């Protein structure tokens, strides 16, 4: 069920994943290994984001805003 208990308010778009803080606690890993993982992860994720979007989603959103699908 949807819930919006988000009290962090606007924290930017998050479009660019800048995770400087994320790597600081991984003291056990060499910085090079951390960087390698971070960049590969972003590459993989970037590829996923670039995947073509099926029409069903734009159609769905168009229908929703026209009130065609309410349930």
């Amino acid at each position: 069920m949807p819930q919006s208990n988000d009290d962090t308010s606007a924290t930017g778009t998050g479009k660019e994943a800048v995770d400087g803080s994320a790597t600081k606690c991984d003291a056990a890993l060499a910085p090079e290994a951390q960087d390698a993982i971070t960049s590969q992860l972003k590459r993989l994720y970037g590829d996923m984001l670039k995947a073509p979007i099926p029409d069903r989603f734009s159609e769905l959103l168009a229908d929703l805003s026209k009130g065609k699908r309410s349930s």
Partner: protein
Amino acid sequence: MTSAASEDFPAMLAALVPNLRAFGRSLTGSSEHADDLVQETLVKAWQSRQRFEEGSNLKAWLFTILRNTFLSERRKRKWERQDVDGDGAAMLVSRGEQLGHMDLLDFNTAFSGLPEDQKEALLLVGAEGFSYEEAAQMCGCAVGTMKSRVSRARTRLAALLGYESGNYELAETFSGEAVRTS
């Protein structure tokens, strides 16, 4: 200034469809299943758009809806065992195949094989750029738990990919964008 009730809301949702699909795919391991989840998420978000608080993070809100939808669907499936066979069986096969050549996994395979909670944590924090606090809130866990999941995910990936022995030359060709003060 956009509000959930405004005409921009469908466009705001549309802009996040790629992210929702990517998140759904990493949760389910199947793009078809992910797309069904995304569809359901968009419908639910639309229906409860009045409850979305203006100025709060729409992406975090949508990710939470998608995640909750996925989890409640899975809880239901536990009671209908037959439905599980398709997805579950396929996943087991690929797990088994992965174990066969564990020595050098490609990143994609290594990532897919992470324990669910770690994969989710790394995706939310490392790829999507959510803060630990946001990610913890979305997953209903403590911030410390989220940090430890991300850390364990990285450590495990490093081990699977052989980075522990300083063998990361391959990956460094991609790390141009990872400019970091070090």
